[in-house]
């Protein structure tokens, strides 16, 4: 079995985990929650095994490199990171309801990687610019940050749902963690993500300086990562200095995650002036 097959299977396992967590939320059966956790763990094992296999396969092809070099590989890593961070949070807070808002993000990322016709899952050799040890540090730190922001986004959504139904009319929402816990968790995840996003941007800058002699050149990707950084910096200042909490923090966190998504996917869609193409 090739790593691509294994990772495709992992996609379905993540889908099953997301299904169990959502069923747990809806049907209130603890067994479903436990099933969700075990399925997610199983999926992570497949995810990690897939990444390791891909790494080995690249060496067999004679073009050995860490599997962190293109959209497919980064999405696979992103999904695994979301699930791992989520499982740690689940264990610490002893609450499985949050799984219904975290695991679907990982499933969607993985499904997009496996099924989108725009994404190539072949192992490709590294072009000269990517041949650097900074690649690994840069990609790992960026995606740890993105994964934390993804979970913060899930927590913010839960918070907003909860706030819409303060009287607890909906029995579904009544099972969410307390607003205070969601708010705090959102903040914790944003701090974690912000630290790693900072390290990610910094390792990228150091890498750029060793490859092209300029640590910052305002290209769209760099600029968008900075915009994302500014949004989360605003959130942290609003919280720490001006004492914002709750709804406003949740909205900022959601806006921040939209910026993350744009940095990740949207930058490629920006128009260029080179539309007249080649002669």
């Amino acid at each position, binding site marked *: 079995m090739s790593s691509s097959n294994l990772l495709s299977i992992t996609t379905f396992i993540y889908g099953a985990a997301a299904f169990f967590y959502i069923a747990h939320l809806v049907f209130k059966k603890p067994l479903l929650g436990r099933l969700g956790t075990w399925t997610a763990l199983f999926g992570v094992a497949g995810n990690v095994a897939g990444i390791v296999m891909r790494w080995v396969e690249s060496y067999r092809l004679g073009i050995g490199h860490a599997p962190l070099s293109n959209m497919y590989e980064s999405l696979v890593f992103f999904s695994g990171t979301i699930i791992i961070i989520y499982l740690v949070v689940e264990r610490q807070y002893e609450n499985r309801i949050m799984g219904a808002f975290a695991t679907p993000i990982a499933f969607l990322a993985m499904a997009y990687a496996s099924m989108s016709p725009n994404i190539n899952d072949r192992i490709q050799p590294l072009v000269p610019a990517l041949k650097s040890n900074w690649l690994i540090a840069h990609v790992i730190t960026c995606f740890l940050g993105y994964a934390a922001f993804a979970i913060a986004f899930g927590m913010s959504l839960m918070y907003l749902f909860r706030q819409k139904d303060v009287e607890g009319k909906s029995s579904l929402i009544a099972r969410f963690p307390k607003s205070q816990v969601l708010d705090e968790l959102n903040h914790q995840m944003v701090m974690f993500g912000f630290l790693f996003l900072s390290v990610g941007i910094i390792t990228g800058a150091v890498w750029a300086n060793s490859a092209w002699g300029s640590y910052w050149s*305002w290209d769209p990707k760099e600029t968008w990562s900075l*915009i994302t950084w500014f949004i989360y910096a605003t959130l942290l200042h609003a919280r*720490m200095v001006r004492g914002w909490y709750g709804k406003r923090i949740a909205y900022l966190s959601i806006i921040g995650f939209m910026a993350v998504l744009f940095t990740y996917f949207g930058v490629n869609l920006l128009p260029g002036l080179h539309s007249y193409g080649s002669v």
Partner: protein
Amino acid sequence: MSVKLTVVLLLSIAGTSILGTIVPQNEDPAAYFRAYGEFVYRLFDVLGIFDMYHSWWFQFLLLLLTINIVVCSIDRISATWKIVFVKNPSFNLSRFRNLSQKETFAGNHPPKALGKIYQPIVSKYFGYTRVEQTDQGLCIFAEKWRWTRLGVYAVHLSVILLLLGGLMGSLFGFEGFVNIPEGEKVDSIRIRNTGKIHYLGFEIKCEDFNISFYNNGAPKEYRSRLTIIEKDTPVYQKDIIVNDPLRYKGVNFFQSSYGKMPSNSTFKNETPATDPSGEITLNFTNRKSGASFRIKTVLGKPVDLSEGFGKFVIVEYIKAAEFRGQNIGEAYKGILTPTDGNPLDVLLPLHFPNFDRMRKGALVISVADQEAEAFNFGERSEQRYYTGLQVTKDPGVLVVYAGFIMMIIGCYITFFMSHQRVCIEIIKGKAKSRVIVTGTANKNKMGMQQRVKKLSEKLANL
């Protein structure tokens, strides 16, 4: 108030930055003109949108942000300083007594004996401890990580360092490029954007350039062997590849591009062969009459052609142009707009003056004053390459890197470490003492509650 302004500034810098990602930066004026039309072009030009990250208003926003960070930090640091640098930290017992979360258990000894047992344990976790008598017995105060209150100032200082380093780089550094044919040497480079010549003070020679490919045809490695020559003596040699530059006397040479040399023509030394910002002499030949005329122009400046041929403008300089998969070296790309017809793309390779005849247009265009070459691909005896180097000097890099390290450490301290204080009050009872454990932290109060609980359990089980 100032923090509010900082947030407004952060968001306006973020917001305006988007513009520069939608409008491509530093392109040819002609390309902008065609893409946006006259009005938008002029508006954007005045506002500096085409190089917005270096425009006066964007730099002004950055300056305002810097001033704000400095002012806010100074404003707050004096208060923090007084808290952090005290010899005997003060503890307010009534504050701890008023805390809502309390962990209480019974101790089997009188307060004094318990205090002796507890103090070393508490000290192990918190470092600083102090025992004080109270009206009902005694209490142990403990605290740690008081200095972490300064973490946020480290982050702010790191941002200042980044901006300072950036400023140093733009004032005292340069960014340029140079093409060196194999076996030749140069003593100067050309500055990017302005096109000025910069003398290095030493010579650099390209001994050899090699490119290797993967089986699928993708490039695997570009490698240039470079030698630094001081007063005709080689002093240093290194093979550079992408991601592994040569550094000499604060100047860095990066592998950035390459190209094939036209055979039997020598490269003009000293400077890159073509000056993208300089004058270009164009030769126009009427195919029917054979009459020709010359016009001088620059990149992006349209020329009016006589005899109703319309307009011609050069829109782009290409270092290594391709024609049917062949590298034909340096070329200009132009657009010919006949008076009664659609605009045409025209490629003008510098080394092949007859190239445009293939277009079979009424007017044959070529770049004058270039060493001509017979138009015969694939019959060259041996292929020579030139290496394209990015050349930079940035004395601000160390300051920026110091800022990077400080930012990472500062963020870690600010987010994940807090000034923690606990109070273990031991109240004299008839048979047993009552022990009350409370604690506060300046950040992550939920986490602190957990720690207080754990400490209390530890002490209760002694």
